[in-house]
Structure formats: structure tokens, C-alpha cells
């Protein structure tokens, strides 16, 4: 069974969700504050973490920062509806996706599955050949990426996005395609998640010698991985 860690200070809600997730075939564990959330997430026992941003003491954003400092475990953020700041900060810090709270449990499960499917898909790519595009080399089966020999620390979403771009290096990949490949869901209106992930990818890799970014924005269409 897939192990899910729920970090939410609402004890009653956690209980309800745990029950729901169990019925859906997940093995869910709940903790109620940021500190123990970080400790559990770093234990390596979970396939995915569901993290509420509104936590007492250590906030969800801070907890995420600590988790990302040591682990690439997929993280799904529960954000306040309409609170764009939390959402963007969360994605920038390396959350794989977000769900506005309150949400239906069905929606939560769909998002969880989408993220897990992506991780499993790339893991199933074990026999796939490494992807090479310019200075970039990616080994999907090991979830490892190198830029001119330097290892890149990428979240699973970033890894999937970069792989999608690198596989079609030199051609434009639309945002809709990137959303399917990176987030495992169709692109929603006004959703800036892809842009946020792309911008953190650009930051992690740095500019090309000419000062240009290796991922070019093609306005109105999508993004393009540049090969010299």
C-alpha cells in the first residue's frame, strides 16, 4: 500500500481524510504540527506528503523548506483558497502541486494519484535510454540529471518538466503538454504553476554563456529547450 503522510493541525479532519484514503487504498498517517511533519517526511517511509500551509508554530511553508533541504519526497500542498502567495511560494520552494482547501476528498485523491503516477511512470522508464540534450543528460530510471557533469537537485515535478522539454529539444512544448507531463493533470485557466516550476528550473541551472536562459519562453505557445 502506498504510504501517505498527512500534516494538518485539524485532528478531526485528519481522521476523516485518513479513513477516506484508507478506503481508496492508501496507508495514511496523520501528524498535527510542522515539527513532527518534517521529522516524519524525512523518515523516508512515505511515498508522498500532504502538507497544510496553515500550521501552528512551524508553518507549512517553513516545513516544506526544511523537507526540501534534505529530501525530494513528493509534496502536495493544501493552500487557502484565493491565497496566491502561499501557493506560489510553495511551488517555488519545490512543492509538486497544490490543492486549495477546502476541497473534496475525491479531488485530493485525484491529485495524489496524478503525482504518484508521474513518479511511477518515470520509474517504469527503467529501460529507457538516458536523455541527452546539449550539456544536459538525464537518467529517468535513476531520476538523476546532470548539467555539464554537475548533478542537479530537482523535485519530481521539475524533473518531469525538464525531461519533457529535453526529449523535444529545439521544439516548442506547449503549456498544456507540460502540465500533463509535469503535473499529471490538464492545464487549468489562470494556473501559473508551470511558469513557477520553469522559473525555478532556470534558477537551478543558471544562464547559458551568452546570458540567455536555456529554456526560452515562446509567448502564447509554451517553452522551448535550446540546443546550440
Amino acid at each position, binding site marked *: 500500500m502506498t504510504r501517505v503522510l498527512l500534516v494538518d493541525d485539524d485532528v478531526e479532519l485528519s481522521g476523516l481524510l485518513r479513513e*477516506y484514503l484508507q478506503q481508496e487504498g492508501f496507508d495514511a498517517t496523520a501528524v498535527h504540527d510542522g515539527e513532527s511533519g518534517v521529522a516524519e517526511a524525512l523518515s523516508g517511509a512515505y511515498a508522498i506528503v500532504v502538507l497544510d500551509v496553515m500550521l*501552528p508554530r512551524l508553518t507549512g511553508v517553513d516545513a516544506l523548506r526544511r523537507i526540501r533541504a534534505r529530501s525530494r519526497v513528493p509534496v502536495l500542498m493544501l493552500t487557502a483558497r484565493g491565497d496566491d502567495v502561499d501557493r506560489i511560494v510553495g511551488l517555488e520552494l519545490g512543492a509538486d502541486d497544490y490543492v486549495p482547501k477546502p476541497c473534496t*476528498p475525491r479531488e485530493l485523491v485525484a491529485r495524489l494519484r496524478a503525482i504518484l503516477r508521474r513518479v511511477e511512470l518515470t520509474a517504469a522508464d527503467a529501460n529507457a535510454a538516458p536523455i541527452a540534450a546539449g550539456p544536459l543528460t538525464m537518467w529517468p530510471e535513476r531520476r538523476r540529471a546532470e548539467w555539464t557533469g554537475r548533478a542537479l537537485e530537482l523535485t519530481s515535478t521539475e524533473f518531469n518538466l525538464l525531461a519533457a522539454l529535453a526529449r523535444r529539444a529545439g521544439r516548442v512544448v506547449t503549456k498544456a503538454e507540460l502540465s500533463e507531463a509535469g503535473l499529471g493533470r490538464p492545464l487549468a485557466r489562470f494556473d501559473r504553476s508551470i511558469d513557477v516550476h520553469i522559473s525555478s528550473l532556470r534558477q537551478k541551472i543558471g544562464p547559458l554563456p551568452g546570458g540567455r536562459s536555456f529554456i526560452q519562453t515562446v509567448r502564447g505557445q509554451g517553452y522551448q529547450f535550446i540546443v546550440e
Partner: protein
Amino acid sequence: MGRLFWKFFLMYWAATLVVVAAVGTTAWLVQAADEHAFERSIEGGPRATFVVTATAATLSRGGLPALRELLADWDRVGDAPVLVVGAGGRDVRGRFVPAPALARARALATTTPGRSGARLVTQSDKTSYVVFLPAEERGLLARISRPSPPSPMIPISVTLLTSLVFGALIAWYVARPIKVLRAAFERLSRGDLDARVAPLIGGRRDEVADLGRDFDGMAMRIQALLGAQRSLLHDVSHELRSPLARLQAAIGLARQNPLKTEASLERIGAAAQRVDELVAQLLTLSRLEATVTDRAYDRLERVDLVDLLASIAEDAHFEAQAFGKAVAVSADGEVVAEVRGESLHRAFENVVRNAVRFTAAGTTVDVSARPAADGLAFLVSIEDRGPGVPEEELPSIFEPFYRGAGEGRSPGFGLGLAITKRAIEAHGGTVTAANRSGGGLRIDIVVPRQGPQGTRDGGSGVVGGARAPRGPALPA
């Protein structure tokens, strides 16, 4: 330059014109009167008498030729320009003769001949002359002989030009801050709540500057009120998040597994209950905000506050016993006041219940209620033996939705103490919190005896948004 500038400028300038005209006229009148006075008088005294007598004698003995010689001699000396006026009022040498002085000389010469500075000389040919020395002869003559005075146009135009400059300065001085204020009002009305005028007014000290400072005060208050309202709205929506999420989860469970429908319904009921409680408390808070305008909500009644508090404490003690806690009351005296009984009851009850909730098991909450020494106020203190509140958070505990953190986190909405503060302030009182030296929290409440104030202006803590539920509804 705005209209105001031109109005001030033109008014100032018109005023200057009037002043210049008035001063000019007065000066002219004074000068005219002066000349008149000069002309009226003739020289007296021994010297004048001598000069006049000598002249008269020369004239009567030697006739006009001798007189002319004498006068010529005196001209050389440069002294005593005596006038010799013949028929027709003309001086023998054709000099200017002030008419009033001549008339006076004639009169003096006839009434007191020989003793005054005027003499009448009648020649053999019956022509008569009046001999006299006009007063300040030299000055007068100098004036008569000197070139015409400089044109008054020069000082007048200088004055007017200066007044133009000063007029412009004054108009600018008054009109500029008003323009600044107007711009600030415009910014504010467009929704820019950061509009302030103080930096543009500077250290100026007058009514206009005060107006500017009042504007800043108003803008600050509006900003604070709107900020409080926004954060309240934000808090309310966050607060609604958890019961709604529970509702969704419970509904999801019921759909997922029909066997669990009964248990889910119970949870749905509990979540709905919580939403209901939140709305009820928000309404209470908003009614307290509106107490002044909405008097029907809670009538004034005569209540013995000591008695009221004692009964609240007794009820709380009864409930606290179940948790191994206790409430001890020390109430003496009697403070009968006209108060809104229900809201005060709720205010005290919230604090006492809060104390019971946080005091450690096996400890006692101390409630003391007594009249102040001067009998004009009612003092209440409530002390618990719980974890207390971090010093830096003490001022926040009366804000709506404050709920502490960690294990001691309150299970409520954090509206109880906010309601207390509103209610006490609506009665013109104060409520403060401090940590006890031995651990735990102490809340002090002072309620003045005269009861509710006409205004609730004293409320600085601002729960502006509490009216939101009465207004155009909360966002979904």
C-alpha cells in the same frame, strides 16, 4: 495657479490699493492743512517788531525807493525777508503773499499798531501798505521757490509692485497647502489609503496645517479600520475553512462507503454546528460594535456588578469541578450601576471560562470583584494558574481570532476575549492582561460606575470588520 490663488491675490491687491489711496489722501489733506496754518501766522517777538518797525519807518520816510534799497540790503545779509503788501494784496517786490497771513497782519496792524509784528503804513499819496514778517519766512519762501516736488507716481508704483509680490506670496502661502490637501483627498477617494499630507506641509503651524494633520489622522484611522476589516474577513474565511473541509470530507466518506453514512451525518452535523457558532459569535461582536445605534439589542438595567460576577464565578466553579479545577470568589461591597446586563454578563463569563480552561488541573482560578476606593468604578481581576501568554503576544489576545499556539491552543474561535473587550469598552471601561509572577494570566477589568458611554469612540483596538456580516455578506 488655482482660483483660490487668484482670489487671495486680487483681494490682497485691492486692499493694498485702497490703503495706498487712503494714505495718499490723508497725506495730501495734512499737507494742505499745514500750509494753511503756515500761511495764517505771522512772526511776532522783538526781532520781528524791530524789523517791521524799521521797514515801516523807511517806507514812510523814504518812500518806495528807500524801501527797495533796504530790502536789497537785507537780501544780501540773507535775513528778514519782510513782506510789504500794497493795494491789491501784492508785495512790492512781487513775492508770494499768503492771503490768510495778510488778513491777520491787517487786523493786527489796525488793532494793536506798534506792538505786533505788523504795521500799516499810509503814504502821502494815500496808498497804504501792510508790513509784516510771515512766520517761518525762510522755510515758506524756500518752499515757494524750490522746484516742484517729485512725482508721487514713483512711490505709488513701487508700493503697488511690492504689494503685487507680497500678494502673490500670501496667496501662494494659503492656496498651496489647500491644493496639497485637495490632491490628498482625491487620492484617498480613489482608494489610495496611503495618502498623507504631513511631509508636504512640513513644520508649518496654523489652522491649515492643523487641517492637514487632521486629514492624516483621519486617513490613518480609515486605513486601520479597513485593514482590521480586511484581516477579519480573511480570518473569518480561514476559520470557515476547517468546518467546511470537515463537511466535504464527511460527505466524501458517506459517498465512498454507504455503511458509514450514519457516522458521517453526525460529523456533518458537528461541522455545521461549528459554522453556526462562528456566525453567532461574529454577530455578537458586530452587535457590540453597533451598540450605540442599536439600543434595542440590550436594554440598560440596574445591576449589582459584584453580585453578577459572584454568580458567574459560582457557575464556573460548578463546571470546573468536573475537571478537578476550582473558582474562588472574593467579592465584597456593592456596585449598583446602569449597565447593559447581558453584554457585561457575557464579557465577564468569557474571561472566567477562559481562565478555567487554561488553569492547570488541581488549581484554582481567583476572581476578585470590588468597588474602587473612590466608589466610582468597579474593579475585577481574574487570575488563573495556567501557562500564561508570551509577553509579546499579550496585546494581541483581545484581537478577534487570536488563539495562541501549541498544545494550549484554544479550541474555540478566539472571539471570546474580543467580545469581552468590545463589551467593556462599550461601557467606557478598560480590560488589560498581564502574566502573573508565579505563572498564569491575570486579567484586570475596570468598569466606571456611570455605565455605558454615549459614544464608543474609546475603542482603539478596532474590530471594524465585525459589521461585515450585517453588510453585503461574506465571500463564499
